[in-house]
Structures are given as structure tokens and as C-alpha cells.
């Protein structure tokens, strides 16, 4: 081995994140990532009788509850299941990843303290878990749409990949941040639960975006609509809804905000840029803090 073997150096230097080599390192460790996702899924589902059915139960229960609520309130949106689920599934991906991700480093203290590997893999694995859930739930939604004959509109369907990439990038950025902070301040994980609850209601998932726009555009003479759009998840959810639910005003009722597909695409691109910026910040923070994880746990 002598001459050929690579030399590894361990120094005290506060590491500076160089994205490309780091991505390469993480890709080289994809086996660990896959194993950890497998592990998380197994731990999540083996101890339960229903297994993966749980992940499908969540949207079904939501659907039942909110159908009931909207019927009672008389604010019935046409094809409510498709409307609700197109936004809810995106939200679920985000909230499951963040909820699990906050604890991802702390819960795996046993690994962090005894094995060396790129620590990003831990929060990334929770994103992986929520992606699996997302795929399961989406396939059910797709099936539902096909069975009920709910059509797609090609032009707005193009928003789907963009919204999806936005969602994943933003989720990864947030999860890296939250999981690193939670190592130092354990109450972050409780705070995250609370914040997610507030965030959920700030995101137009169960109520129609058109309504928000109508009410907020001149809110006491102040354009609060643009402030509302600062919530990246609102934008992302609008994207998913426009892609799947497609019609802005089915049967003449405005449900989705009446903006053009192109405008929405522009908004999503802006969100992508902002998310990438956020990712580079939170990744740097995570990377800097991750050197001390083993001794702080």
C-alpha cells in the first residue's frame, strides 16, 4: 500500500466548507445514507402493526376532517380532495423532515460519538425518509386522480418539477440548520413542533389562496399579500396546487390566486435562488458546528 495509499490529515483548523468536494464526499458515502434511510423507515414502521399504512393514513384523516369542516362552513371548494392533498403532501414532506430532522443528530449520538462519516448524512437521511413517504402518498393521490378522472393540464404541470426542487432544497436547508442548533440547544426540537403548527396555518393548504389574495391585497391600505408570499412554503404550495389542481377558478369560483403560470414560475425561481442561498448559509453553519458534535452530545 505504502506509496499509493492516500494520506489523510486531521487538524484543528475550523473547516471551511468547499461545496463541490463535500458533495463528492457525501456521494461517496451514499451507501451509509441509503442504510440510514432504510434504518429510519424500519424503526418508524416495524414496531407498528400497520407499517407503511400509517404514512397513508395521515392524508386520509386530514382529508376526512377538512372535508367535514369545509362542508360545515359551507365554503366548499370543487374537488376538495385534490386541492387539499396537492398542498398537504408538499407540506408533509417539509414537516416530517423537519420534525424528524431536528432530532436526527441527537438521536444518533451513538453513531456520532463512535463513527466518523459526513454528519450531513444524518439530517439528509430524514429528508430521505420523508421523500419515501411523499412518494407513497403521491402515488395514492395520483391513483385517486386517475380513478376519478381528474384531468391534468400540461402547461401548469410543468410547475411540478420546479416546485418539487424548491421544496427539497428549502427543506434540506432548514433541516441542516435546525438539526445543528438542536445539538446545542435541545429545546429547539420542541420549538420546531410549535413553529410548524403556526407555519401550517400560515400556508394556504386548507384554505384557498384566492381568498387570501382578495383579503390581503389591500389590508388596511397595506399590501400584505406580498408579505404573505415571503413564506416560501406558500409559494411552493401554490406551485403544487397549480400543477395538480390546475384550474384557477373551477366552476367560476376563484380558488387559486389568479396569477399567470409564468408569473408563478418566476416566483418559484426566485424561491429557488433564495433557498439555495439559505442552503449555502445553513450548510456552512452545520459544517462548522459538526466538528464538535461528538463532544457536545
Amino acid at each position: 500500500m505504502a506509496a499509493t495509499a492516500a494520506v489523510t490529515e486531521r487538524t484543528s483548523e475550523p473547516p471551511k466548507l468547499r461545496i463541490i468536494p463535500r458533495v463528492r464526499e457525501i456521494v461517496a458515502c451514499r451507501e451509509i445514507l441509503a442504510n440510514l434511510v432504510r434504518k429510519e423507515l424500519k424503526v418508524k414502521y416495524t414496531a407498528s402493526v400497520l407499517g407503511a399504512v400509517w404514512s397513508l393514513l395521515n392524508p386520509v384523516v386530514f382529508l376526512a376532517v377538512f372535508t367535514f369542516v369545509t362542508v360545515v362552513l359551507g365554503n366548499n371548494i370543487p374537488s376538495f380532495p385534490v386541492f387539499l392533498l396537492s398542498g398537504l403532501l408538499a407540506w408533509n414532506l417539509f414537516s416530517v423532515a423537519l420534525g424528524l430532522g431536528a432530532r436526527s443528530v441527537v438521536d444518533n449520538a451513538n453513531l456520532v460519538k463512535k463513527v466518523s462519516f459526513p454528519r450531513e448524512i444524518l439530517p439528509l437521511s430524514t429528508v430521505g425518509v420523508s421523500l419515501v413517504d411523499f412518494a407513497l402518498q403521491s402515488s395514492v393521490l395520483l391513483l385517486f386522480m386517475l380513478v376519478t378522472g381528474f384531468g391534468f393540464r400540461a402547461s401548469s404541470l410543468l410547475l411540478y418539477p420546479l416546485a418539487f426542487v424548491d421544496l427539497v432544497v428549502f427543506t434540506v436547508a432548514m433541516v441542516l440548520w435546525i438539526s445543528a442548533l438542536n445539538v446545542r440547544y435541545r429545546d429547539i426540537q420542541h420549538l420546531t413542533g410549535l413553529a410548524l403548527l403556526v407555519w401550517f396555518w400560515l400556508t394556504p393548504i386548507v384554505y384557498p389562496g384566492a381568498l387570501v389574495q382578495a383579503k390581503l391585497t389591500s389590508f388596511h391600505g397595506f399590501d400584505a399579500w406580498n408579505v404573505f408570499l415571503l413564506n416560501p412554503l406558500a409559494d411552493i404550495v401554490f406551485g403544487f396546487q397549480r400543477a395538480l389542481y390546475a384550474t384557477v377558478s373551477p366552476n367560476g369560483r376563484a380558488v387559486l390566486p389568479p396569477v399567470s403560470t409564468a408569473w408563478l414560475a418566476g416566483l418559484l425561481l426566485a424561491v429557488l435562488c433564495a433557498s439555495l442561498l439559505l442552503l449555502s448559509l445553513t450548510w456552512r453553519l452545520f459544517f462548522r458546528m459538526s466538528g464538535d458534535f461528538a463532544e457536545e452530545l
Partner: protein
Amino acid sequence: MPAAIEVESISKVFKLFREKPSSLKARLISSRSRAEDFWALKDVSFDVREGESLGLIGHNGSGKTTLLKVIAGIVRPTSGVVRYRGRIAALLELGAGFHPELTGRENVYLNASFLGLSRKDTDRVYGSIVGFAELEDFMDNQVKFYSSGMLVRLGFAVAVHVDPDILLIDEVLAVGDESFQAKCLGKIRGFQKEGRTIVLVTHALDTVRQVCDRAVMLDRGELHAEGAPIDVVRELRYALLRRDPGFVPEEGTKEVELSSVELIREDGSVERPVRVGEDLTIQLDARANRPVTDLVASFQVLDSANFPVADGREPIGAIEGKKRVRFALRHIPLVPGHYFVTVGLASGESGRVYHVQTQRYWFEVVDEEGRHEAVELSVDASVEDL
């Protein structure tokens, strides 16, 4: 030949909080300045040559695990550099990298991926990992139901099957049962033959002497001794004794002094190991700095567990100038191993200690070739008609 591992003035400072502020509130209330610095490693430097087996020994809390973690890249040093060549596999403490909810099989794959093995590679060695660990019947059980010994077996089996250039082992062997320990040592010997580098942390000092080419001793984070295993091990025993408040390596009024002490083998040599059944003479030279009338010489032999196995005393009486005392130990029946000798001169009447050297000398006992009994038993055989 290049060093496989270079440890260059490594220091590691841990922040010790009286109570670690692990919540926002606590952090806001207590300022960071309440943290105290704790030097777990202080300016430690040494090299491990390629193909060498290094024993890393030291008391509890002396920084051995911390050093391995620095080498393995689990914690960052505060200052200094570690460089190593090739692929490292670290076996740190019990059940490292295992998840209790997963089965043995799944954990093998998880663990192997940490050590850099792909799924395909793992498939290939899976059979021999399980075979080595002798856990064929348990691979589909969750690891949380494993005993500590079973965890160690599995961990060790994986670590030695990932084809590492450097193997770091922390303490884990002690938990395995005798047969597994023997198997591990066999595997370690095999690794040595293949020219791989090993760093072994253990409190089993005999293992260090048997297995390692060299040893390093840490004491409170500092490199205290480095060299041949036997010397470093002796130094550690010495340091252990020194911790004992009653222990003084050398003491006395020196009215009479031990001017020379020698352990002489049958053939006059003072160096080579003693074979079981041979004689050994402990020869003390006493020099009186002041005439005394009631001198007594004594000795004690202790085994490596500090257990006394032989002693003796001999009145010398009056002394002016020099005298020589010989204690001849006949047909040494001791089990092979290392033995340490304490010698002393004292007053027979008052008990006043003139000069004592505690465990300053040592000798090794080895089996005669072809002999395997631990002690010699004389056997009388007889046959009679019934």
C-alpha cells in the same frame, strides 16, 4: 519507510461546564465564561510505523479513547496534526455504530457502510463475518437482544473484514469470552503478518506484552513513556503504585544503603528469561554509611497482578562497610509471566527502614520448550494386584 500514523503535538481541550447549558434559557442565564478548560490531551507526539502494532496504555481517563477519536476523525484536535496513510477501521467501545432496533444482519450492512464497504462488497464477505462472529443463529434477531459479548464479536468481525490498512481497537476485546479473545488475537497476529498497522488500547497489560511491538503510555493526557512494551508496562505499574498514597518507589534513612541488586540466573546471566524449574538468585549488596548492629535484609516477589508469590528475610547483624546477601530461589515453580521484586534493608529491633526499593527489579519466567504444564507436580504412580 513512511510512518503509517504520525501524531504531531496533538492537544485536545474539552470545555467542562459545571452543568452543561443544553437549553436556550440555561445558555442565556449562564455565560460561556463559566466553562472550564480541561486538557484531555497535551502535546502528544509519536509515530506508528507501517506494519507495527502499538499498544496504547494508561489509567482511566488518561486520554486513550480521546486520542483514538482524534485519529479516527470523530473529534477535532485543539491543536496539532495527525496524518495517516490508507484506510482506517476504528473499533471504539461497545456496539459502536450499531442500532439496537435493527437485526444483526442489517447492522452488519450499516456498520460495513460506515467503514466504507459497498453493499456488494458486504454481500461478498457477509458469510465470513457471520462465521467469524459465530452468530449464525442470531443474525435475524434485533441487536438490542444481544449480550455484550455478542456485540463485540459482531463489531470485531465486521472491522476485520473491511480490509483496513490501519486498525484501531479500543478495549473491546476484554468483553469477549476466552475462546473469542483467542480468535481475535489470532486474527490480530494474521493482520500483523500481512503488514497492517494496529493500535490497541487495553488494560490487559499481558496482551500488550504478547502482541505489541511497541507501547505508548499516556498519563493525564500527556505522553509519559514510549518504548518496548515490557518497559512501558512496567512504567505504568510503577505509576499505578505511585498513585497509591502509601507508595514510595524508594525510601529509607540510608544509614545502610542498597548499593547493588542483581537477579542472577543459573548460568550467571542477569538478563535472559528464567525457565520454569531453574534457580534464580537475588543478590543484594549492602553498604553501611554508619555502623549498625541489627541489619535485616528482605525481599518480596510479586506477580503482574501485584500479588505476592514469594518472600524471605535474612538477619545480617552488625555491619561496618559492605556485605553481600544472596537469596537463592530453587526450582522456580512459577507460572510463566513477569514478576517484580521488592528488596529492603531494615533494623531488626526497631523496624526502622534503612533502604527499600519497591518493585524496582523484574524477571520473566518462560516455559521450557515442549512443556505446557503451569506448575510442576510430582506424581507418584503405583500399580497393585487386586
